[in-house]
């Protein structure tokens, strides 16, 4: 069903947890449909210094969350915005067709977190 890479990220997820005083937080999904992903960002300047996640969901949901955090750490916000759900799935060696739609939302959560960061910055200004 899942690739080895998915299973690796599910079993040993990278960057699980919260960032206290995160300056960007994004959440997508809802418990009703079985997936919630929340991503915390620590942005300095234009660069993602640290990133963590918490996810309620299936194997694919956990693995994509973990993968996206690995992909963006150290990247600029603009680079991060270019990461799509499909790219995350690809980085994992692919996902089962049924999972491509319902559980492959990690990039969306990332983008939501970046959006949240920008909004917070605007408010500060």
């Amino acid at each position, binding site marked *: 069903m899942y690739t080895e890479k998915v299973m690796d990220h*599910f*079993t040993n997820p990278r960057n699980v947890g919260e960032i206290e005083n995160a300056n960007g937080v994004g959440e997508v999904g809802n418990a*009703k449909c*079985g*997936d919630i992903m929340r991503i915390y960002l620590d942005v300095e300047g234009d660069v993602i210094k640290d990133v963590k996640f*918490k996810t*309620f969901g*299936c*194997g694919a949901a956990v693995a994509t969350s973990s993968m996206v955090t690995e992909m963006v750490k150290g990247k600029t916000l603009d680079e991060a915005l270019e990461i799509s759900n499909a790219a995350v799935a690809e980085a994992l060696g692919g996902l089962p067709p049924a999972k491509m739609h319902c559980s492959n939302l990690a990039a969306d959560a990332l983008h939501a977190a970046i959006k949240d960061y920008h909004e917070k910055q605007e408010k500060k200004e």
Partner: protein
Amino acid sequence: MRRVYLDHSATTPVDPEVAALMMTYYTEKYGNPSSVHSFGREAKQALEEARRQVAELIGAEPSEVTFTSGGTEADNLAILGTAEALSKKGKHIITTAVEHHAVLETCEYLEKNGFDLTIVPVDEEGIVSVESVKKAIRPDTILITMMHANNEVGAIQPVAEIGKLAKEHGIVFHVDAVQSLGKIPIDVKTMAIDLLTISSHKIYGPKGVGALYIRKGVRVAPRIYGGGQEKKRRSGTENTPGIIGFGKACELAGQRMAEDAQRLSKLRDKLMNGIIEKIDYVKINGPLGDKRLPNNVNVSIQFVEGESLLLSLDMLGIAASSGSACTSGSLDPSHVLLAMGLVHEIAHGSLRFTLGHQNTEEDIDYVLEQLPKIVDRLRMMSPLYDQAVHAKQAQ
């Protein structure tokens, strides 16, 4: 690694005695039972012996047993065959909200093709009330189709009472006994059942074999046409090795049922109680005690999702199943759990353990040792758990 199989309601291993018997019919006694020669006759004889064994387990006459390719086909034959045979009499069918897809989808197909369907609800334990079935009956009701015991939560339905009701109203009564066969007693006569679906691979027989009991005198139109096997009720070269295996499995089930039920219900309760004790925020789904199949445990574990639980258990060698939508690739979790009133988020985190003949006390201990750790780990990752804990602390 220890491998603990706790998914016997999905399927069972074939009993070694059954498998050995089947081998003989695959490689030596391989005749087609329709053939005149001795290869054919020895196959035919074994086929009829299997029919007798199956009939005996459900209190039927051998001539009332029609073999099919499984429980799903038998359900289809019962429902669509009755609909075709009786459509002139009426076009209303009654079923329940917790049926297997083999019944629900088939009823819904009929609904799309001019039949009326009433889906009777269940209570929070997953049990149908006789009263609600009674209320659903109309003058044009031709069929009540429902299960004996539920595959997800193990709820045992009051089929004998509903059978009586159906009989009084002259309505054909079909019971899907795929999950109850070999686990609790079935008697088609005293339960007033007209059509009964059973399946081999849930009772340590081979996959790809099942049967429909058709009470003498009840008309069911065939669904598969051809050589006229099974008294024209189901054409196709008989799967003799499979059927013979099913027959043997029925015989063994009859011998083992009482002892297994007693032993497994103890293990079941140990597992349920152990989970409640060791993990917070859990909910047992389905009835307790005698209203529940002796081998079924179903529990919702809040703040975590079913597939994650399954994968984590699997990595430790434990095979279970879940009512999560994510395990089936659909969007909604188990229609059974929803029909029992569970909210989506709780239904998503449900786990089913179904015990079998080979499970031991040690298997249960192993699960009770591993499951809490898994839940802890997943809850650590879950954004919902924080919220709940914070909310509780805030109280």
